[in-house]
């Protein structure tokens, strides 16, 4: 579904992403982990069309991506950001946020679609006429997921979707993302610094360091410790050490 070959992104004299390649089959989930500044979000932003300055080759569903994307691309590929407080308009109600993608893409039946979307992310219908600040963090992230699903996309790009949430809410949102993936056959690319979260949702994990994807490993191999690169091993060791209570 998604093929990225030799992707490089440069900001002035800094090469933030250096020749990254990976492939995500349809209906699969690919995770990218790395520390701040490793270039993981930059890969996602180039893929999503938020950053037109890249070189290399990217394909979605067999169609090569150009720096300028068509309207249909933005219908089929949607993004969920880390902080729903920042990504939802503070002065627009949930109803407005959810109907906008429909209006942009000329999709009819706005009313039933909004109700269905709220039900799908397990939000009560009463949320519809609230503002983002009237919702809890978990509810806001559910709205952000619902908004991304309005245009019925095939691909969801998830940038740290649960790092701003409490652990109990994180579990609910991760379960929601798993359910949606099965139900709608979505393809995910998720970026996170939390190895356990990425391994939970994604079958394959790419590890980035200094703009390079140093290793691509299956979640099972990662859990079992069958990893090649020292950085992957270091991230794994730290994650294992901290997840056990002292």
């Amino acid at each position, binding site marked *: 579904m998604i093929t990225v070959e030799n992707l490089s992104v440069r900001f002035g004299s800094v090469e933030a992403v250096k020749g990254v390649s990976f492939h995500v089959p349809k209906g699969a989930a690919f995770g990218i982990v790395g520390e701040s500044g490793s270039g993981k979000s930059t890969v996602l932003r180039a893929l999503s069309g938020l950053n037109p300055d890249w070189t290399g080759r990217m394909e979605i569903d067999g169609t090569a991506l150009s720096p300028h994307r068509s309207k249909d691309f933005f219908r089929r590929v949607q993004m969920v950001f880390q902080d729903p407080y920042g990504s939802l308009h503070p002065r627009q109600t949930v109803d407005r946020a959810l109907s906008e993608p429909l209006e942009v893409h000329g999709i009819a039946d706005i009313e039933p679609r909004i109700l269905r979307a709220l039900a799908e992310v397990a939000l009560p219908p009463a949320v519809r006429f609230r503002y983002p600040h009237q919702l809890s963090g978990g509810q806001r992230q559910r709205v952000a997921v619902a908004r991304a699903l309005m245009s019925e996309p095939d691909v969801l790009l998830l940038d740290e979707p649960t790092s701003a949430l409490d652990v109990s809410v994180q579990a609910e949102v991760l379960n929601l993302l798993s359910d949606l993936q099965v139900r709608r056959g979505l393809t995910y690319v998720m970026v996170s610094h939390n190895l*356990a979260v990425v391994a*939970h949702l994604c079958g394959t994990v790419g590890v980035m360091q200094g703009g390079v994807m140093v290793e691509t490993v299956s979640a099972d191999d990662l859990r079992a410790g069958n990893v090649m690169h020292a950085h992957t091993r270091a991230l794994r060791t*730290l994650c294992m050490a901290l*997840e056990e*209570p002292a």
Partner: protein
Amino acid sequence: MTAVVIDNLSIAFPTARGISHAVRGVSLTIGTEKLGIVGESGSGKSLTARSILRLLPASAQVTADRLSFDGIDVLRASEAEMRAIRGKRAGLILQDPKYSLNPVMTAGAQIAEAWRTHRKGSRRAALQAAEHLLEQVQIRDPQRVAGAYPHELSGGMGQRVMIAMMLAPDPELLIADEPTSALDATVQAEILRLMEDLVSRRGMGLILISHDLPLVSHFCDRVAVMYAGRVVEELRAADLRRAGHAYTRGLLDCLPTLSDPKVRLNVMTRDPAWLT
């Protein structure tokens, strides 16, 4: 040795729909030790810790049978008495250095300011102290960092600067409110290890506020778990595996882990009885 005594602390806020009880009858004592306060957003963990410094919103209605810092009654102390505690005897480290450092002052100048305010020395001595403090928080090139503005520093560096600033007056107690939530896993561990080390070496008390229970247990002696304004369980960090309260176990169970893969994560079922 400083001891914070909190006995039956309640914090409430008037709202349009009546009184909202944010903290309800919390009792804790903290000596020269590392105490973790763990809970979710809105559990009252930050309010509880901030009440020690009387840094609560003006509308907060605070009552307690006892709320004292080294014998000083925090609820009745004058502003001048509180200023002698805040920063000087008890430092507060906040979540995100991006928002809590002054963006138009260099890191060195900010640390020097904290040092001078509490220690009264010359400008030059303060700047030297600032560089020395940056060294103590394991910054390799203290001179460069001292001359840098917050936007030129990474999140981890910014947090080190904030820790250095809080250490400047040589406080007895450090309150760290989600000090590493904005940082990634590797840096998070480094900063917590650094704080743990400094606190142990200087014989300070530490209150570490976080939502990450397993993480906190690695860096604290004791953990108080808060839910809806109450401490539902207090236990030694080493006994976390034997946690008795269903909420504490729920917090541990809902985390995805590398060692124990699950198709679906456990979701917390909240028992109304936890509220009483």
